[in-house]
């Protein structure tokens, strides 16, 4: 699919940057004319993915999160969130709703479930010890649907 526009940004996996990351993606998505509901859902999905990098990938350590955002032909928003953290040994289990490896931090185990319900397509690739890449796609319908 043809890439119409693209940005990349990298930031330390620090909780303070959760808000920054979703705000940047939401600002980029404005060119696709999303509705307020679509913006809210995109921000939530990004927030979940970035939180996973901080809470899980770099647990107790530090590292960088790299985000690529693209506007694709057909008014599709593409988001890739990459970390070089610990990796996920069992992706299927990690994506199971309510499964969490961090209950003591009050994680609900819903990160991937939220991403999957708010985006059209979510793909997770992970290598233990190397890192994880989450890619998400969402066709932006139009702000005209806003009520």
């Amino acid at each position, binding site marked *: 699919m043809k890439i119409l526009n693209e940005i990349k940004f990298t930031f330390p996996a620090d*909780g303070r940057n959760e*808000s920054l990351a979703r705000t940047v993606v939401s600002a980029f998505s404005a060119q696709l004319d999303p509705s307020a509901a679509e913006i*809210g859902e995109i921000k939530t999905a990004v927030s979940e993915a970035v*939180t996973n990098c901080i809470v899980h990938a770099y647990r107790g350590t530090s590292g960088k999160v790299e985000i690529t955002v693209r506007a694709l032909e057909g008014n599709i928003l593409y988001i890739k969130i990459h970390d070089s953290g610990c990796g996920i040994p069992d992706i299927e289990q990690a994506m199971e709703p309510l499964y969490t490896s961090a209950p003591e931090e*009050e*994680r609900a185990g*819903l990160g991937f479930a*939220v991403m999957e319900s708010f985006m059209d397509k979510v793909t997770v690739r992970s290598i233990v010890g190397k890192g994880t890449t989450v890619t998400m796609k969402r066709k932006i319908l139009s702000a005209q649907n806003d009520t």
Partner: protein
Amino acid sequence: MPVIIDTEENTVIARLSGEIDHHSAKSLRDDIDLAIDRHHPKQLVLDFDGVTFMDSSGIGLVMGRYKSIKPYGGSIIIENTGAQIKKVMRLAGLDRLAVIK
């Protein structure tokens, strides 16, 4: 100030504001738990009127407070949630733990 806490008889009311994510949830959790420990309320009201964004960290926050209030026989009432927040709560089946208004 991300949360203002009021107490009335057997009720603790937490008026949340701003964005609830993993980063901000921690201080909200500490502030609300402090009020629960102090007042042992029968009811906890979480007012989301001022909340502009919430991800699944907010679900963890509500589930955790359910655990905090349970020893006192307490229940949770969630008020003034916007459409995006309601969607996340519904996804989590939070209506089984709390009354969502």
